[in-house]
Each structure stands twice: as structure tokens, then as C-alpha cells.
């Protein structure tokens, strides 16, 4: 694998011959140049803005000064690519509305803007001289030492030359010795340049790159996988429902039929009684299995959609339920299932806790969202967090970007609302 940044490159053999020392040099040199420009820009802006502030014209200039970090940080994030191949995301938010004013307000409110300004000041005041110093010591000195024999042959006319303008060299062996030392120092300097560039890049990344960028990406991935899980869960329920229906249930029906036939043949007596009992038990098992299958995934929901399934649930409710729904078609399976189970749970709670004499389910699909309300005339005081099945359903609703809310003041009435953003997948009711 290729190294992703200068640190990784330095930890491998062949660093000296790779492109990374050159990248480090490029980073530090452009850093020094950009730093000088930043310093000039900052000082000019501050001076002109400060001087003109008395006549108010300077005030906008001071605002521009506050935003000076933006272009500098923009350049710095791009320069970072020289020594660090990992992306440095922009920490700024996109403005909600168009126009300069919206852009300005959001930028001035952002923490990142002020962090970038601080970085710019640090850059202009301290970092670029450091860059320049490292370049001088780790690159220019060894290069000039390596060039000693050349200098001696040309400028010194074969007699003498000065090393780093300090020491005089007069003999050829000394000159070549200094050159060899220069080469060694150049190799050492390459590592020094790498360390300096790497540290500089780390500092830059820390101060002006979006640290939550990959966190945001992970949240997106997490929500996607949550949706996938819910879909898989739904598919699995359907599979279980079908397996039970096509397997166990068919066998039980056949069993009760065989037992029923056997009963016709058996004369009255103990055996007939036993058979009657077995027949009865098989019938009960069948009834229980039927309820179980229905609880897993009601077939009417798959075949006819939400309106019919909720009407069916209302039929089964002990408390009389009025249903007023208008869903002109079918919805996503996951939405249908979640909405259906929320209504079922709500109706079950009405029957168990509310003491209501009547309940009502109303709502429908309009404007790309589905809204359902379950209302009762009971005593109220319901608490969604008090371990009811609604908590789990609220999770299921939120996966689909839906909202579940419960209003239940003591004394009633209780109103449960659930809302999903969703599109109709089939416009009209299916026929034949």
C-alpha cells in the first residue's frame, strides 16, 4: 500500500528516494510564501480598517478582517494535500438561504470561522517563519555544503572558499570532505523536513479541518443500515408467516379433518370420547396458531393495504371503534406495517387501560405524508415511556423518519398521532 501521509512514508525504507521529501519541501516552501502573504494582508486590513473605523467606512473592512481566516484556511486545506492524502473536509455549513446576508450571518456564527481566524494569526505570526527556518537549516545549509568543491572551483578560483560564510576552506580534500558531510546532512535534513511538514500538517488539520466530517458520514451509514435492518426484519416476518401458513397450519387442518372423519366411524364409548378430546385440542391449537400468524404479519395488510387492515383491527377491538381513513392506494410496505402495528397497539391500550367507551381512528395520506390519529374518550393519563409497547413502536416509526406523539392529560381524552413522510406506490385500489 502506498503511504497516505508523510509520517507513514518516513516509517518505510526508501523514503529518501521517494517523492515525499520533495512533497515536504513543497509544503514548507509554499507555507512560508503563503504565510508572508497572509501577514501582509492581515496587517494591511487591520491598519486600513482601524484607521478608517473613525469614519465608519472602516467597519466593513474590520468584518472582512474577521473573515480573513476563510480564504487562508481554504488555501491551507488544499496545501495539506501535499503531505497528507486523506481529505480535509470543509467545516463550514452551507447557508440555508441565498444571498450575501445569509452567508455572512451563518459564517459569523460558526465556531469554525473564528478558529480559522486564530489559525491565520498564528500562521502569519509564527508558523511561516518556522517553515522558512526549517527549509534554511535542513535544506539550504546542506545543499550549500555539498556545493563547496564547486564553489571553490568557480568563485574561489581553486584556492579557497567559505563554508556557510563562516569557515574558510583552502584545500581540495577538506572541500570534498565538507561536501560528503553536506550529503549526509542532506539525508538527515530530509527526515527533519518530513517531521516538520508532518507536524505542521497535523496542527493545520487539527485547527481548520472538519473533525466531525467522518462522524457525519458514519451517522448516515448507521441510519441506512438501520433502515436495511428494519426491511430485513419485515421480510423475515413475512417469510415466517408464510412458512407457518403453508406448513404447520395445513398439517393441523388435515389433522382435524382426519380426526373429524374418524369420529364419524367410532361408536360411542371411551374411544369416541378420547377422539373428541383430541379433535377439540387440535382445533384449539389451530385457533391459537391462527392468532399467532395474524400477529406476525396480517395477510389483509399485504393483500388490501392499510385501510382494510385497520378496519379489520377495529372489527376485532373490544371497544367499538369508528374508522375514518382515506388512503387512496398503497404505501411502502415498511410504512404500512409500522402504521398498522402502531394503530393495533394503540387500540389494545385503549381496551386495556383507558376505560373508554368509544375510540376513533382517523387520518389519511395527503401531501406526501401519512397522518393517523387514534383518539378515545377514556380517563387519560397514559404514559408512552412507562414500558408500553409504544416505546418499541416509536423506534420503528423513527427509523422511517416518522413521528409519534401522545397526548393524554389525566381525565382524558387520549390522542395518539403518528406521521410518516411517504409516497403512494400504487395510485388506485387494486381490482381483481
Amino acid at each position, binding site marked *: 500500500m502506498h503511504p497516505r501521509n508523510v509520517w507513514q512514508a518516513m516509517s518505510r525504507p526508501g523514503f529518501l528516494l521517494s517523492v515525499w521529501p520533495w512533497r515536504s519541501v513543497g509544503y514548507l516552501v509554499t507555507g512560508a510564501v503563503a504565510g508572508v502573504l497572509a501577514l501582509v494582508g492581515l496587517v494591511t486590513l487591520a491598519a486600513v480598517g482601524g484607521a478608517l473605523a473613525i469614519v465608519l467606512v472602516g467597519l466593513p473592512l474590520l468584518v472582512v478582517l474577521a473573515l480573513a481566516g476563510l480564504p487562508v484556511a481554504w488555501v491551507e486545506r488544499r496545501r495539506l494535500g501535499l503531505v497528507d492524502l486523506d481529505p480535509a473536509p470543509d467545516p463550514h455549513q452551507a447557508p440555508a438561504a441565498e444571498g450575501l446576508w445569509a452567508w455572512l450571518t451563518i459564517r459569523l456564527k460558526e465556531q469554525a470561522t473564528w478558529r480559522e481566524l486564530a489559525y491565520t494569526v498564528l500562521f502569519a505570526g509564527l508558523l511561516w517563519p518556522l517553515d522558512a527556518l526549517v527549509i534554511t537549516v535542513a535544506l539550504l545549509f546542506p545543499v550549500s555544503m555539498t556545493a563547496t568543491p564547486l564553489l571553490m572551483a568557480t568563485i574561489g578560483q581553486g584556492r579557497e572558499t567559505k563554508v556557510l560564510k563562516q569557515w574558510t576552506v583552502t584545500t581540495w580534500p577538506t572541500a570534498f570532505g565538507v561536501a560528503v558531510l553536506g550529503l549526509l546532512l542532506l539525508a538527515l535534513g530530509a527526515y527533519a523536513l518530513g517531521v516538520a511538514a508532518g507536524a505542521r500538517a497535523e496542527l493545520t488539520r487539527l485547527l481548520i479541518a472538519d473533525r466531525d466530517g467522518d462522524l457525519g458520514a458514519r451517522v448516515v451509514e448507521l441510519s441506512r443500515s438501520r433502515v436495511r435492518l428494519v426491511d430485513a426484519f419485515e421480510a423475515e416476518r413475512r417469510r415466517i408467516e408464510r412458512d407457518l401458513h403453508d406448513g404447520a397450519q395445513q398439517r393441523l*387442518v*388435515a389433522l382435524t379433518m382426519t380426526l373429524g*372423519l374418524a369420529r364419524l366411524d367410532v361408536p360411542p364409548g371411551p374411544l369416541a370420547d378420547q377422539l373428541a378430546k383430541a379433535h377439540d385440542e387440535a382445533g384449539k391449537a389451530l385457533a391459537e396458531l391462527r392468532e399467532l*400468524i395474524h400477529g406476525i404479519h396480517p395477510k389483509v395488510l399485504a393483500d388490501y393495504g392499510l385501510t382494510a387492515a385497520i378496519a379489520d383491527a377495529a372489527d376485532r377491538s373490544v371497544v367499538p371503534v369508528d374508522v375514518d381513513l382515506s388512503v387512496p392506494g398503497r404505501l411502502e410496505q415498511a410504512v404500512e406495517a409500522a402504521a398498522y402495528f402502531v394503530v393495533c397497539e394503540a387500540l389494545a391500550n385503549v381496551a386495556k387501560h383507558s376505560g373508554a367507551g368509544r375510540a376513533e381512528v382517523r387520518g389519511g395520506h395527503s401531501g406526501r405524508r401519512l397522518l393517523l390519529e387514534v383518539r378515545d374518550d377514556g380517563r387519560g393519563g397514559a404514559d408512552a415511556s412507562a414500558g408500553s409497547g409504544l416505546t418499541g413502536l416509536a423506534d420503528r416509526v423513527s427509523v422511517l423518519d416518522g413521528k409519534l406523539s401522545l397526548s393524554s392529560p389525566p381525565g382524558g381524552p387520549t390522542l395518539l398521532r403518528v406521521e410518516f413522510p411517504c409516497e403512494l406506490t400504487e395510485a388506485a385500489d387494486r381490482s*381483481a
Partner: protein
Amino acid sequence: MLLREGLIGLLGRCGHEVVAAVGDAEALVAAVEEDTPDIVVTDVRMPPGFQDEGLHAAVRLRETRPALPVLVLSQYVQRTYASELLDSGDGTGVGYLLKDRVGQVEEFVDALCEVADGGTVVDPEVVRQLLRRRRDPLERLTPREREVLALIAEGKSNGAIARELVVSEAAVGKHIGGILTKLDLPPADETHRRVLAVLAFLRA
């Protein structure tokens, strides 16, 4: 399938002839074209999709032959399915039963004959669901009349209803008269009015 084999055995035992036994909705329609049976018995769920192909096949058959008696079996009774079926044709010669009922051999065969004779049989489970709703126009009925209507819907004769409620047949007749009046069903052929009463009951 398991159930089909069992049903063939059961019907044979009770002296009925099975003219065709088929495995999917397409074949069902084709077999009816060929043999013209006295009654069709079908499951709601059928291959290939295992959705509600059987029910739709039954409804289609009723559209082309309104007089063909059809008995639909379902793993799970639902008013929605019952309504779709009963709205096909004029509501006579239709049955909708829970699959479990085939275990009650004698009652099942009775229901089968009732449907074949043009009666309407609805599973007690559906009836029970409907009774919970207590809606207009059924609200005008007395509790006793609703009870009688529920039993009619299950396909029971006046005599059977009288036995079930432990009253005289004359009393049952009086209740039925009350029901028909309250549901605004004009005097006409007695069986037909009974069916209409059941339909009113189911649609309420």
C-alpha cells in the same frame, strides 16, 4: 396439497363426487369451464403468488356465472374478503368459512350443501366481528333480533335457529319478520330476503 387430498377423501366419504381437483387459480377457472360443477370449493391463497388468487378466481367465476355456488376457505376470516365475495353476483350461493371448519365434518358438509342450494353461509368468526360493530341500520334491531340475524348469516335454517335459541319456530319467524321490516326489505321471495338481510348485516 395436504388439504386438497383430505377434502377429496372427506367429500367422497359423504357421498359427493369430486369432478376436478386443481392446484392453482388458472386451472380452477379452466376446470369450471370444462365440467360445470354444482359447487366450487377454493382456498383464498393459491399458487403461484400465494396472495389472494383463489378469492379473485372465485369472484371472476361469479362474474361470468352468477349462479355458480362458491365456497371459499380461508386461513383467517376478514370482513374485507367476505364483502368482496358477497358483492359478487347477488349474494346467493356463496360461502366464506374459516379453514378450520373442515374439521367439523358434519357441519362443514351441511354448509357445503346449503351453499350448493343457493344459500349464504358466513363463518361465525366474521359474524362475531360484525356484531361488535353495532352500527346503523343494525342499531334498530333488538339484541334478540341481532342474534337471530347472526345465525341466519351462518347459514342456519329457522328450525336450527329455534333449537339453538331454545324458542319455538314461530318465535323465530316473528323475529325474522321484525328484522326484515327494520332493514327495509320489501316482501318478496323468502330465501332472497334472508340473503339480503345477511348482506345488509355484513355491509353495516
